[in-house]
């Protein structure tokens, strides 16, 4: 998963870190990061595959428009990473293809 990182953090005042889990590995995100920013900083690229062709994608517009940043957050599929702030202990996984709506999931939520 880990590519050469395309993004470097600016050194700015320390707003504190938020410990999250990205694709199974712990990662120190910054307080105020979106999930998409954390995903890019951690190098989880691609962060999803598309439902029809299965092609690989990563966060792109970072402002809620393009839906390329869909990931699974704490078991919830198809979350827009750029519209969601990181939270302590959050588990972030790639979104692989179309989501499932399984009977098990139905029972889990009910």
């Amino acid at each position: 998963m880990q590519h050469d990182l395309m993004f470097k953090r600016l050194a700015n005042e320390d707003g504190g870190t938020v410990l999250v889990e990205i694709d199974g590995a712990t990662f120190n995100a910054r307080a105020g990061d979106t999930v998409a920013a954390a995903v890019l900083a951690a190098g989880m690229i691609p962060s999803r595959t598309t439902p029809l062709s299965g092609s690989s994608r990563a966060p792109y517009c970072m402002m809620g428009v393009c839906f390329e940043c869909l990931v699974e957050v704490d078991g919830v599929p198809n979350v827009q990473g750029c519209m969601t702030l990181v939270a302590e202990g959050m588990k972030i996984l790639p979104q692989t293809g179309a989501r499932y709506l399984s009977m098990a999931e139905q029972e889990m939520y009910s």
Partner: protein
Amino acid sequence: MSVRLRADCRETDVTVIGGGLVGLAIALGLIRNGLKVTVLDEGDIALRASRGNFGLVWVQGKGDTCPEYAQLSRLSARLWGDFAQELESFTGIDVQLSQQGGLLICLDDAELEQRQRMLCAMREQAGGDYPFKVLDHAQLKALVPAIGPHVAGATLGLEDGHLNPLLLLRALAEAFIARGGKLLSNASIGEIRQQDGGFSVVAGHDRWNSAKVVLAAGLGNKVLAPQLGLSAPVQPNRGQILITERIQPFLHYPTGHVRQTGDGTMQLGDSKEDVGFNSGTTTEVMAQIAHRATRMFPLLENVRMVRAWGALRVMTPDGYPIYEESRVCPGAFLVTCHSGVTLGAAHSGPIADWIAGKPEAFSLEVFRAARFDV
């Protein structure tokens, strides 16, 4: 910029007014009959029922008070397989036709009993040849494990199916053009008149002369028909549809209210509203649609909705189509229906053949608009 004062005059064998599912299916069938065909389509201001529909190829329950309509719907369903293949061979577009049967889900026992009575009567009317099954809750759950616990059952119409209506619209237009048809957009229709044993239609800067003219303009037919001695008492009836994110396939049969497309999208319908020409959406109706869909399939509670739309059905007073050649202006034809998908194969086949001048394969007398003059 110059202004043209006189319309340019153009010749064609048949002018079809309306470039939706109905007009294009007929136009394609006319080309198959060796005719030169021009389709005049309105601009983006058009109401375009063809861009808002649900995509069912549906037979069960249709025509319970009109056996001829039941027969026509079933004939079209039988012709659909070959028609879809023809479209794919000319365009490479797979319209995602699937005819494995369709479910009409009934939430309570009274609804299921009423439905069963209606289909039994239709089977009797069809001389026993009307394939359907009535499924109780357990039988339905065996077929569709995701069905909700409070659903009474369903009727399974073995001739029902569905397809992707937007791909169909594109395939029809591409096939028509590939076979030499002329499709003109932004062609708002002006005057239509009879002349020299044919017709003259003004569309924008052009005048189209043809031996025959077909009105397939949906709700627009109401205004156009009287110019040709025809009557099209059609009214808009709004349906709203909700669209969800794509999900892994779980629903392998279309249902009357919920279907999963070949791409995994869920379409949730529908409503029947008398709101004039307003094609918008309302929170109240969308909530009703979502509520019913989640009673049928509780797992949809967690699905994301990505868009919704309203579209206007083209409804006659009795809900049945009008197929009619003008007695005042022979050569002028009126076609209107609210099932442009289901009837598409029939429109492109026997209906187009009838307009082309072949002997009627079956009587269309019952579909004349005179039935409303009582």
